[in-house]
């Protein structure tokens, strides 16, 4: 450490680097639009286009469902009727069907995940901005297995002959309106093979009804007038417009391979979310003022340097949240605030050490020695914290650990906070102190 002494400019160079980094991060941390002294400013996003290289990045804070409002739904798959070796595929295709349905439902940035634990397969669906969970869960949760059946002569038995024409033979379904009654109907367009199957069925059943069955319920049984070729058909049940729309989404996305049921639901309104953000920000500011004041009272000018480090910490962390991006949840904000309290920890360790060392050697040396000696315990202690953060965040989605959003959000912000606090607590404040102490000596 002492060999760096002659290169006076090195800490200054690093300080310039820190200031540059701070300004860059500060820029990213700015809200998209803000007003200062009555003037409005708009922060541009990263948008570089040079020949083939195109870098685009939006620097907005990504808020979780509990802050931005939205719905978190958990469905449990009923795998009892599937043979055990086919379960994995069934769940995977279940997820795909649900994803398609959610997308067709018109939700922006939905998130569909599967989870397996304790012998149960679950599908977690996150729908930002959705509050009407009744519609959402019925669109997602219905199996929507469409089949066509022939009605045999002896109708007394009530038994239908299921044909091989199903929802899987559809190319597209859409909402249409009955030309005579004006009621909403569902128009079906079959694939090539589906059209052939339909043609055969109608040919065979002229003058007889063909039953259209959805999830074991008879929707309608129109009587076939003549052979229908061309591969289109219409379901005229007694749909409301809303029901017709939902059915179209379900049919276009495909039937669920296995039935599911809703086991958990969490919905937060956008107003409550905004309120939570405001409260957290206020709590954070009050806490921050207390920490900053405490550091100055306890360590004087050294404390002031730590406070500067803390400001750099806040700005860098915010910029990194936007850059990664980290989805901020309410517990996530708590994790961030907690890391603010912990960020000065390395400074406190070093300053306490400095108090002891100052008695033994000149100030500049004492400073270097304190940073060096405190490092071991800072490293060991923070790695232990990172271990717990790692288990809570469960980055590899290990099924035997928590995969819940809030817990993960907390762990990620905590881990990011620890990482950056090591940088600001050691690199930033060390170089600040080096420059100031040298300047004083001159």
């Amino acid at each position, binding site marked *: 450490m002492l060999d760096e002494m002659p290169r006076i400019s090195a800490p200054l160079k690093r300080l310039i680097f820190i200031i540059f980094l701070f300004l860059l991060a500060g820029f990213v941390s700015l809200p998209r639009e803000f007003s200062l002294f009555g003037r409005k400013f708009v922060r541009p996003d990263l948008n570089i286009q040079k020949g083939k290289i195109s870098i685009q990045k939006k620097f907005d804070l990504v808020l979780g469902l509990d802050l931005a409002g939205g719905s978190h739904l*958990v469905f*449990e798959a009923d795998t009892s009727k599937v043979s055990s070796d086919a379960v994995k595929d069934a769940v995977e295709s279940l997820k795909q069907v649900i994803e398609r349905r959610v997308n067709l439902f018109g939700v922006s940035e939905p998130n569909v995940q599967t989870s397996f*634990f*304790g012998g*149960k397969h679950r599908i977690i669906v996150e729908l930002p901005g959705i*509050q009407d*969970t*009744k519609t959402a869960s019925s669109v997602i949760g219905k199996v929507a297995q469409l089949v066509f059946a022939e009605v045999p002569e002896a109708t007394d038995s009530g038994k239908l002959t299921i044909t091989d024409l199903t929802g899987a033979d559809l190319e597209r379904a859409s909402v249409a309106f009955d030309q005579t009654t004006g009621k909403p109907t569902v128009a079906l367009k079959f694939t090539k093979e589906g059209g052939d199957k339909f043609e055969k069925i109608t040919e065979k059943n002229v003058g007889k009804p063909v039953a259209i069955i959805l999830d074991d319920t008879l929707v309608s049984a129109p009587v076939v007038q003549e052979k229908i070729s061309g591969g289109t058909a219409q379901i005229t049940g007694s749909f409301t417009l809303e029901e017709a729309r939902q059915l179209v989404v379900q049919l276009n996305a495909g039937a669920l391979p296995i039935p599911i049921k*809703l*086991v*958990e*639901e*969490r*919905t937060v*309104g956008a*107003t*409550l979310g905004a*309120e*939570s953000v405001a*409260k*957290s920000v*206020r*709590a*954070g500011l009050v*806490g921050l003022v*207390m*920490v900053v004041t*405490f*550091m100055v009272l306890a360590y004087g000018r050294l404390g002031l340097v730590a406070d500067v480090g803390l400001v750099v910490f806040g700005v860098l962390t915010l910029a990194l949240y936007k850059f990664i991006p980290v989805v901020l949840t*309410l*517990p996530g904000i*708590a994790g961030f*605030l*907690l890391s603010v*309290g*912990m960020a000065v920890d390395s400074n*406190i*360790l070093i300053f*306490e050490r400095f108090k002891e060392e100052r008695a033994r050697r000149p100030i500049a040396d004492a400073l270097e020695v304190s940073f060096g*000696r405190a490092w*071991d*315990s800072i490293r*060991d*202690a*923070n*790695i*232990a*914290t990172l*271990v*717990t953060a790692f*288990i*809570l965040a469960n980055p590899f989605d290990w099924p*035997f*650990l*928590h995969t819940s959003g*809030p*817990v993960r959000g*907390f*762990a990620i912000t*905590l881990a990011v906070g620890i990482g950056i606090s090591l940088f600001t607590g050691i690199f930033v404040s060390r170089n600040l102190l080096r420059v100031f102490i040298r300047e004083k000596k001159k």
Partner: protein
Amino acid sequence: MNWMKYRLVYFVISATIIGAGLFAYVKWGLNIGIDFKGGTIVEYKFEAEVKEERLKELFEATQLPTNSIQKTSDKTYLVKTESMDSLRKSTIVVYLERNLEMKVEELRFENVGPSIGPDLVKKTFYAMGIAAVLILLWIAVQFKSLKFGISAVLAMFHDSLVLLGSFALLGHFFGAEIDFLFVTAALTILSFSVHDTIVVYDRIRESQKKSGGTIYELANKATTETMVRSLNNSFTIIFMLVALTLLGGTTVKWFAIALLIGTVSGTYSSPFVAVPILVTWDELQGRLRRSKFFF
């Protein structure tokens, strides 16, 4: 200062606190939230002020088992009931609107089926187990001694017990619930606890290399040297958590309190649980070795 002379006092203090908590736990149990046992939480915002009694009457009339109705802020109530499905949820809003003759807004709706809970408990124990083992190994490797690792992990469990006991008490007297966030807090304080312990250990390690001496002497020296640091660092964390408890809103209040208890206990347990255990262990080991030598 001869901190280690009063080891017995520290053990008695810890035993008293944990004992009180465990007594509460055995007597009243924990106040389990919907995350674990299933149920529904709804937060309603009413257009105008509504009396709590009126709301109670209305909910009683629905025949839906209602666990609690609690005012959270202006015109806003938090209602906890048995699990209700989406259909029931929307009928209740219409029912309230019709009877109160005002607009009712659902700020938040959480419904957890009973099948989710047991998994969470299992996952929590797995997470705690893995964290404990990893931390134990990390400390044992860094300090080249299993003694250090095990003492630190014992102090860690001490803090977990303090937290659990405190929540049994807080749950009985103030309605604190055991939920997802409590579990997160419990796991987080594992690392707090160990954080401070490592700082004291590090001082023991450093002095041992430099001057040597018995663990007893080294522990006294290290505790003296790190006391101010431990206190100051805890203060900064406590400031943030107190602000969060008082201003952060209902959702994170108990979470912040759980972390607060963990921080205080974690600060205490490093010099007054982990280090005394280490010293006691070392003495016992020494006595055992000596007796072997004689026989």
